[in-house]
């Protein structure tokens, strides 16, 4: 059901621990050391305190000292209380198992207060990347570096902030947020960044709660009719003309001895006066294989967009055929998925399509052999796939001429630039 990214506990507060899979450069990224920030209101407050302290020491007015003492002690208490609020918080994220790019998905984020006595107030949960982007230090660094926008954070799972106003001791609360993933691919969860401005809103304190998790987002699947200009026909189940066990009536013939009495067709028997038996047609589903040629020549950025379109097209084809109930095989240079049916099989194919990458063309040659498709382990299988036994839809960027005619005869080829 919903994939449950195991509970991420923040066990000790002594030091912020980075999840192990993060590169060390993260520490320089300005997130971890600056887990404490002054807000706008806080700056005003500190300014006022400073002014007051000047006045108070100047005039020696004890009333001002009283106020100053109260204001300073508020700062101290604010620090203590906000630190306590962020302690012992566990978080978990629940996502659907099968997600498509661009699709609105509802995510449940749950926060649990592990403390026995103290409630936590006003906690905001974000992906660490998002908060990194907000940090003024990062912005300054980027501005110095030339304003190239940070690529990181695009593959973050949790793309929206959530806010929990109150969490009583030992209580769990959940928030449902709706978000979408922009592209296909592997999205990783780095952790959760929880921050609070509790109690007074003058200071913001944050900490990272380590977590691990990832999700594969499938490419966009569209209705096949969108591609009707590319596929002039919509193949279905093929019936092969052979007798055998099946459901459709093939013929009625004389009853033979030792045959099962079940096959007797009594109506025909009544008509003809002789025992007649039924024969059924054997259903044979034709084999179908979807081939995605990921070898692309050149490295222009337009090729990236075309490649993405190709992937999305392949996904849509696979979805259509599988939903029709056709046994589908899937082949790329790096992977071969044998025949299967059912939604699970579709997801299996989509999982490969989610991570498939564009590769540089290695061989200059014809390219339709084992060297080109190393995922297929033996030559015989490859020959079988390319034979007429298997109907194929091929998506490739190779020029038309490079496709062998034998292959062409039993397949329908779609070229990248047609998409």
């Amino acid at each position, binding site marked *: 059901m919903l994939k449950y990214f195991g509970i991420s506990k923040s066990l000790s507060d002594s030091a912020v621990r980075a999840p192990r899979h993060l590169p060390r450069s993260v520490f320089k990224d300005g997130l971890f050391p600056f887990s404490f920030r002054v807000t706008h209101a806080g700056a005003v407050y500190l300014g006022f305190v400073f002014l007051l302290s000047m006045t*108070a*020491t*100047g*005039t*020696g*007015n*004890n*009333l001002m*000292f*009283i*106020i*100053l*003492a*109260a204001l*300073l*002690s*508020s700062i*101290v*208490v604010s620090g*203590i*209380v906000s630190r306590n609020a962020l302690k012992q918080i566990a978080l978990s994220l629940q996502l659907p198992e099968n997600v498509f790019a661009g699709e*609105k998905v*509802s995510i449940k984020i749950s926060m649990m207060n592990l403390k026995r006595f103290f*409630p936590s*107030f*006003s906690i*905001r949960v974000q992906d660490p990347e998002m908060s990194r982007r907000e940090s003024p230090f990062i912005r300054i660094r980027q501005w110095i570096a030339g304003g190239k926008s940070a690529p990181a954070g695009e593959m973050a799972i949790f*793309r*929206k*902030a*959530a*806010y929990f*106003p*109150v969490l*009583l001791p030992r209580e769990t609360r959940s*928030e*449902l*947020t*709706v*978000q*979408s993933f922009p592209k296909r691919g592997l999205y990783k969860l780095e952790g959760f960044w929880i921050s609070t*401005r*509790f*109690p*007074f*809103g003058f200071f913001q304190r944050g900490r990272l709660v380590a977590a691990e998790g990832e999700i594969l987002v499938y490419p966009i699947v569209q209705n096949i009719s969108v591609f009707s200009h590319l596929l002039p026909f919509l193949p279905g189940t093929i019936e092969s003309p052979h007798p055998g066990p099946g459901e459709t009536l093939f013929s009625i013939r004389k009853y033979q001895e030792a045959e099962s009495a079940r096959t007797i067709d009594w109506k025909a028997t009544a008509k003809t006066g002789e025992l007649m038996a039924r024969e059924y047609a054997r259903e044979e589903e034709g084999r179908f294989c979807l081939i995605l040629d990921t070898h692309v020549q050149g490295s222009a950025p337009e090729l990236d967009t075309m490649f993405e379109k190709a992937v999305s097209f392949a996904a849509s084809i696979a979805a259509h055929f599988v939903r029709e109930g056709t046994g589908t095989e899937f082949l790329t240079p790096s992977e071969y998925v044998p025949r299967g049916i059912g939604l699970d099989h579709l997801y299996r194919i989509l999982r490969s399509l989610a991570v498939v990458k564009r590769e540089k063309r290695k061989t200059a040659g014809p390219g339709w052999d084992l060297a080109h498709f190393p995922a297929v382990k033996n030559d015989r299988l490859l020959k079988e796939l390319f034979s007429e036994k298997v109907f194929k839809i091929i998506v490739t960027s190779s020029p038309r001429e490079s496709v062998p005619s034998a292959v062409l005869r039993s397949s329908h080829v779609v070229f990248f630039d047609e998409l």
Partner: protein
Amino acid sequence: MSFPRLFKAVSFCLISSGFVAITAAGIVTWISAILFSAVLIFSWVVDSARIERSVAGRILKFLAPGCIPLFIIDYTLLSRSFENAVFHLILFVAAIKLLTLSKDRDYLLLYVISFTQLLAAASRTVDPVFTACFLLFLFSAVASMILFEMRRSNARLQKEAKVHPVIVPRELHGTGMELFSPFPVKTMLVTCAGITLLILFISIPLFFLLPRATLGSYRQPSGKTLMTSGFSDRVELGHIGTIKQSDAVVMRVKTDKAFEELPHDIKWRGLAFDLYDGRAWTRSEQARNPIPTQGWYYKLENYTQRANLTNQTFFVEALSTDAVFASHRVLAVSRDVGRLRHDTLGNLYTSGHALNKLKYTAISDTITPDASEMSDLRPIPEDILRVYTRVPSVDPRIARLARRVTEKAANRYEKALTLERYLRSTYEYSLVLRGTPKSADPLAMFLFDVRKGHCEYFASALAIMLRQLGIPSRLVNGFRRGEYNSIGESWTVRQYDAHSWIEAYFPPYGWIEFDPTPPEPRPPRSALSRLLYDLSDAANLWWWENIVNYDSARQRRAVAAFLDRLDNVNSRIRGIAALAHGKIQSGARAFATGWIILLTIVALAAAAMLLIRPMRRLIIKPIRRRLVRENPRSLTIDFYEEAITLLGSKGMRLVRGQTPLEFAHGLRGHPAASAFLALTVMYNEARFARFDIRLRAREAEALLNALRESLSAGASRP
């Protein structure tokens, strides 16, 4: 209670605390207080955001600048005080804001206004009402700021959500505030209380530790200046009498002598006068000369061997006179009195404190003259004789009377004593003020006609009579010892303690005090009012002495003392312990003030709240049941709800989604489990089968009782 309502409640608490503080301090009039309260209540009940948008709101905003002419009228005609007018203006602005509350910054403005009001009240007075307001302010400020921050964080999130159109904001939750419901109000308030206490706890040592640069230059401004007749340049006979009607506190004195040790006739000398013109006393010499300082003190005289030193600390209210009071003979005065000057009469003057309270220390030598040393043979210095024996033309009978009474006296000193005694025993004390016709001699009228008067008359009579006998004497106005406040260990001197006496010059001592006035009756004060007064008075004094006058000198002394103790471990522990104990005791006594009343009110309120629930159950519910014709179904539900409430009070609650039977089974192991199970079965039957519970009411009651018993039995078990 929902979040928006809670937020409004704490904000209003905050606003009220400032408002109550300034009302109690007398800065704003009662009329404006009542009007503002009405606005406050109205604004609480009504949704002011709607008003703001409506026509009424616009009218109000239009009226707002009309406050300025009102302010001018107020200042010039009504209250005549800048401070009062300003705060009336502030109150007006606050009232308009209250009626048109809509944005966050409106709330912020009201918070700031409340803070200002609290500050103003603080500078006026520190009394139980103020302290209560201060605590309330602190608590509601903490709560308001916390809730305010939560509101803003939520708004920030909603704003972000709108900015990214791909991400659909909170479709599932509505306006966002539902996120906050149900809001755990009790937890929030307890947390706020905890934070407030923590802040108080930390700010107290912080206050004492913050470095001070100056020497207690804070003069606590006083709202009122006491008019002090009798301490100006010219004192007519009868002036002192005018202030003797009032019981306003003039000053408080702390001495280093215990209550029993301090002579009962000690007086706080104010100003002496040497020139009498028949109706009034003045000073012949106006020159005021500076006094040399030595260390922390102004040094007036050297200490002699036989000195009987008394250390006095004066806490004087804002007075219209610049006289410095101290008991005769002053040897030194501390420098925090300001710029000290003196004149040839021995009067001490400071730079005036008509607006501020004043605090200083004086060291005096209280002389007890030895009669055997007084001999007429010692000569009186010429200049003194010249100045202090001048007598204007007065009724000749006065001189005759003086001579007659002192016939038998052996020496000058004896004569003075005799006259003093004579006046004291022969004439009556009376405070009735009588004007004297211009022609008459007031002293002669007093001595021969009326034969009664107040202290000025007695003193003037004695002074003149002594002068006519050739003994230098001068009139002194000041205050009597006052009333001892055993809680604060201080002497409270009021206006009715104002007194006149004389000083006469007798070598080798110099000027010696004589007081011919018979004892004056004190106005009676009930024991209770005395106790209450003493308590709050002592508290005020403690606050002023230790907080307001806390300065770098005290700080340094405190730190030095602390470091001293660090040297010796044993005495440190003992010392601190003893110190703490003493401080707690005196502090506790000082602070356990007439706030007994306040605490009683709070206790009554709490008791009332606690009693509400049982009261409801015992009285209201049965009445309701009998009045209303209940249908059996709601009776059944009531029956079950009662059982649930019983369990709820022990902390067992029905979880959402749980059926009654599941709940009952879940209690397994608890002593009340079987009773509750039986009850639940009966409830199920009554509820879901077509069944009238009234038919088995007795059984139902029995089950409830069984449940109650098993619950209390379970509770009493360890």
